[in-house]
């Protein structure tokens, strides 16, 4: 060893522990980013998650959070590496090596470490998602839609992160050696980063800010539209920023004061609290990142019960096993044919009812976009197509007598009158799209029937009005709705056969999504504009893919078949469910790794404190208590804050949607509580493992502690 280069190489060998930690942190970050972006940009996912839809927005939002978490985690790992490295660099500089001479070696080292770990993380990301996704398919649910395809353009994001990691570590190397105060470099490792004590108001104020930010961020877009008659830009989401400030203040309070009253035992956990306080900046940052990731994880996992519980409750509450509707110009099986089909499966049908309806054009007031982002409200004479039952049909289908006054119409909603956004309540004229005869009407209120309350939008007219306006309609503007039950039990095979028979009876003119609106198309074409439904933006529905979530969710004539919906639910929505489960796993893993790493860092930095305590005669019990005092808040606070904040946010969203909580939502939230308990259990196990590992590293005999107790 005669050159500086060989000296540096030898020193790198001794730094293996910190290098491994750095490698591990970078590896995990890149693995998570690659895995997540591979999933997010996978054609499998993109085909299922509608563009501009809430699910895709949520997926992207959580991705941004995860990305933020990974960036912070990587910066933390890099800082940690340089803090440990600083003593060595400072000593060499003190002995006469200039920063300029040390820089190439240091850059080479961090570049190699960053590049190797990042590259390995990127490479491992793909097997990781393949294993995880295929485990879902193997153990949870499978469908043709779930065959995972990867678009390798997702690597752009990983590559960008790769560049950030390398760039930041090299910049850190440069900054470290650029400092003129060598004493600072030498003592960097032992530099404390105490946070300024903000006052005990900090925590409660943080909670208030958190709640205020959530409310402000949620209300702001609607308020903006109301006040300025314009669509807000994405920047309005910055109004959620107080949430993060609030979270930071809560974490700060946790580190500086804790949340328990210390009046009774002022010296309890004194050492643990002090250690935390004097490395406050890093600790607060770590807690914040973990909280955000846990929040993202919980948000992801909540999607599953919220989607499935509401759906399950709705399906179970249906008064009929089967409901289907069709245009009169389609040759759809009638009662006898269905009965014959059922007989093939030794089944019988009962309660068969069918009732006619007509499709009419409604006028109404809607938002019309102007130049820029502004809009105004305007009455459109031919706004949308809607299905109208006469009073008699409604009675046939529901068994309930209803009276609609002449010259008025009623909208069919669920009992709670929630989710009524798709109903047109401002119509004053109905138009027959064949004869263009019109009927002046006004909204007369809701008819409550949960079974028919869906996004297709059903309305009821006075019998007489119905006859008047329906006169002259061609079969493509009229239709029939039919319902029936099964005698005794039902069978999935029959249901599937019926479903396939029904689909094959429809012509290609009906191969369209539910929001394809013939009235709107006519109106746009009349104005010389292209209807958006005829552009590639419109989701395509194909009779050849009846099991996809698009078909089941959006086909215009999709029947409601209880047994099919119950059995196929997981498969139909498998990509949705699995993607959100995947998000939850990724975010949870990241949060756990960050908390674990933080605890290990605290241990490494304060090892001498524990050694001193041992020399002062501290018992294993006391030392374990101090370790728990360190590790406890690192796990508990992010978990508690992340979970409860997200639970409250979900409740707020559910409530704010329609001003009430439906039975499905209450059921879903109850299941969410159980899931939270399960996640908390997993976190507790990881916490226990961490404490055990910390004790092992510090040579604290946990058995001895039990004996001494």
């Amino acid at each position, binding site marked *: *060893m*005669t*050159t*500086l280069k*060989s*000296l540096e190489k*030898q*020193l790198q*060998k*001794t*730094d293996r522990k910190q290098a491994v930690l750095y490698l591990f942190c970078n590896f995990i970050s890149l693995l998570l980013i690659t895995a997540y972006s591979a999933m997010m940009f996978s054609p499998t996912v993109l085909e299922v998650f509608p563009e501009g839809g809430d699910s895709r927005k949520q997926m992207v939002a959580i991705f941004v959070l995860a990305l933020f978490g990974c960036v912070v985690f990587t910066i933390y790992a890099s800082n940690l590496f340089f803090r440990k490295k600083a*003593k*060595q660099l*400072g*000593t*060499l*500089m*003190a*002995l*006469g*090596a*200039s*920063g*300029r*001479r040390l820089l190439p070696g240091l850059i080479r080292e961090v570049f190699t470490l960053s590049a190797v770990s990042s590259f390995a993380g990127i490479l491992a990301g793909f097997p990781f998602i393949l294993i995880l996704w295929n485990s879902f398919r193997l153990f949870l649910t499978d469908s043709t839609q779930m065959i995972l395809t990867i678009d390798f353009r997702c690597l752009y994001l990983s590559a960008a992160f790769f560049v950030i990691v390398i760039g930041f570590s090299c910049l850190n190397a440069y900054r470290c050696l650029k400092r*003129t*105060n*060598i*004493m600072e470099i*030498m003592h960097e490792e032992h530099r404390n980063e105490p946070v300024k004590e903000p006052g005990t108001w900090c925590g409660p104020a943080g909670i208030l800010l958190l709640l205020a930010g959530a409310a402000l961020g949620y209300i702001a877009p609607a308020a903006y539209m109301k006040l300025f008659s314009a669509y807000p830009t994405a920047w309005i989401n910055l109004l959620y920023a107080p949430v993060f400030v609030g979270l930071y203040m809560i974490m700060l309070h946790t580190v500086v004061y804790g949340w328990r009253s210390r009046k009774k035992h002022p010296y309890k956990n004194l050492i643990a609290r002090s250690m935390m306080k004097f490395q406050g900046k890093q600790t607060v940052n770590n807690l914040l990142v973990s909280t955000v990731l846990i929040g993202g994880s919980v948000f992801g996992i909540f999607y599953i019960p919220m989607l499935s519980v509401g759906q399950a409750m709705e399906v179970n509450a249906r008064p009929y096993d089967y409901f289907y509707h069709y245009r009169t110009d389609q040759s759809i099986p009638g009662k006898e044919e269905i009965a014959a089909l059922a007989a093939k499966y030794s089944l019988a049908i009962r309660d068969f009812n069918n009732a006619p309806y007509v499709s009419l054009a409604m006028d109404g007031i809607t938002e019309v976009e102007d130049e820029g982002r502004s809009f105004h409200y305007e009455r459109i004479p031919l706004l949308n197509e809607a299905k109208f039952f006469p009073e008699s049909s409604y009675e046939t289908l529901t068994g309930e007598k209803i009276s609609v006054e002449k010259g008025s119409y009623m909208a069919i909603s669920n009992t709670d009158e929630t989710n009524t956004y798709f109903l047109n309540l401002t119509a004053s004229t109905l138009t027959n799209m064949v004869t263009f005869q019109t009927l002046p009407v006004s909204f007369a209120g809701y008819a409550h029937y949960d079974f028919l309350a869906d996004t297709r939008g059903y309305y009821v007219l006075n019998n007489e009005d119905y006859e008047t306006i329906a006169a002259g309609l061609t079969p493509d503007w009229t239709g029939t709705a039919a319902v029936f039950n099964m005698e005794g039990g039902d069978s999935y095979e029959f249901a599937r056969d019926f479903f396939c028979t029904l689909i094959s009876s429809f012509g290609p003119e009906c191969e369209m999504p539910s929001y394809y609106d013939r009235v709107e198309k006519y109106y746009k074409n009349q104005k010389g504009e292209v209807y958006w439904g005829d552009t590639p933006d419109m989701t395509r529905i194909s009779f050849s893919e009846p099991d996809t979530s698009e078909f089941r969710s959006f086909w215009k004539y999709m029947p409601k078949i209880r047994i099919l919906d119950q059995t196929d639910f997981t498969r139909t929505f498998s990509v949705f469910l699995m993607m959100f489960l995947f998000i939850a796993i990724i975010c949870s893993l990241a949060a756990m790794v960050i908390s674990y790493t933080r605890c290990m860092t605290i241990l490494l930095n304060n090892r001498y404190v524990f050694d001193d305590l041992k020399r002062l005669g501290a018992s294993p019990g006391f030392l374990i208590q101090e370790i728990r005092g360190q590790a406890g808040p690192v796990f508990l606070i992010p978990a508690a804050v992340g979970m409860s904040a997200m639970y409250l946010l979900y409740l707020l969203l559910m409530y704010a949607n329609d001003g009430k909580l439906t039975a499905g939502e209450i059921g879903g939230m109850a299941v969410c509580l159980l899931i939270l308990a399960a996640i908390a259990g997993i976190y507790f196990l990881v916490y226990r493992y961490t404490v055990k590992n910390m004790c092992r590293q510090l040579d604290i005999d946990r058995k001895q502690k039990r004996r001494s107790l």
Partner: protein
Amino acid sequence: MLYVKNLHKSYQSGSKSYPVLKGINFSVAKQEFVAVMGPSGSGKSTLLNCISCYIPFEQGTITLGGQELKGLDENALAKVRNEKLGFVFQDFMLLDGLSVRENILVPRIIQGKVDQDAEKLADKLLSLFGIDHIAGKYPADVSGGERQRTAVARSLINRPLLILADEPTGNLDSKSSRAVIESFENARAKLGASIFMVTHDSYAASFCDRVILLKDGVVYDTLEAGHGRGEERQAAFQDRLLGAIREMSSASPGDNPSGSRNYDNNTESNAPAHIDPGSRNYNGGTENKAPAHIGAGTETPGSAERRDTK
């Protein structure tokens, strides 16, 4: 050889500036052993760090071996540190991954001159400081005293003009401290080294030719060891040092001694707690466990604080 003139240094905290050195003047001659003492916050370590070129200073000049340090660029300062200065730190600052022998050679490796001469000198230093038996061991495997002697050996490998020692006995027990001081004496006597040491330890300082007392960022007083030889001279010098320290601690801020002074110590120790009045007994390396207020050996003027050094 080392000239410090009108040295000023202040630290910034936010918008406030806190002056630490307020016009320091002194010099160190070739083969001279000089110590700086003073209460905590008096500016000792800052002074040492300025001379070491570790931290920049605002005003004044530091000249080492005829070379003015102010205004040198990073590379030139590094060269000065490597070739003209040797360093001994309180917490040793040895590199964990290198053996004792390799640690000694580090300044030469940095210089790029690990030749036969360097190897021979390393062996000579190992032998001179009694650490040749641990040459292949790693810092973690040797005692504190051995680590510090390794650091002293390392400081001499480039035959510097001046060794700068920051509290070299601060982390050591009495036996090891004694060994380190002996190392310095050896380095001076056999290798012609000059030593500039910052210390709180009046016993360690009593081996010096001269002690500069620093208070509130200015030189409060300078004490010469005087003539004579051996332990008697050292003991007498320690007494004088303690007297001077006591006087300094009771002086009002801004006071500087004037006229003739008698630092003979015939009274109970009033030395401030932050300056070690010699609470350890360096009796040939054997610790005297008797508490400080119990006389150990024959009472001589000032022995209650000086401790028996026989």
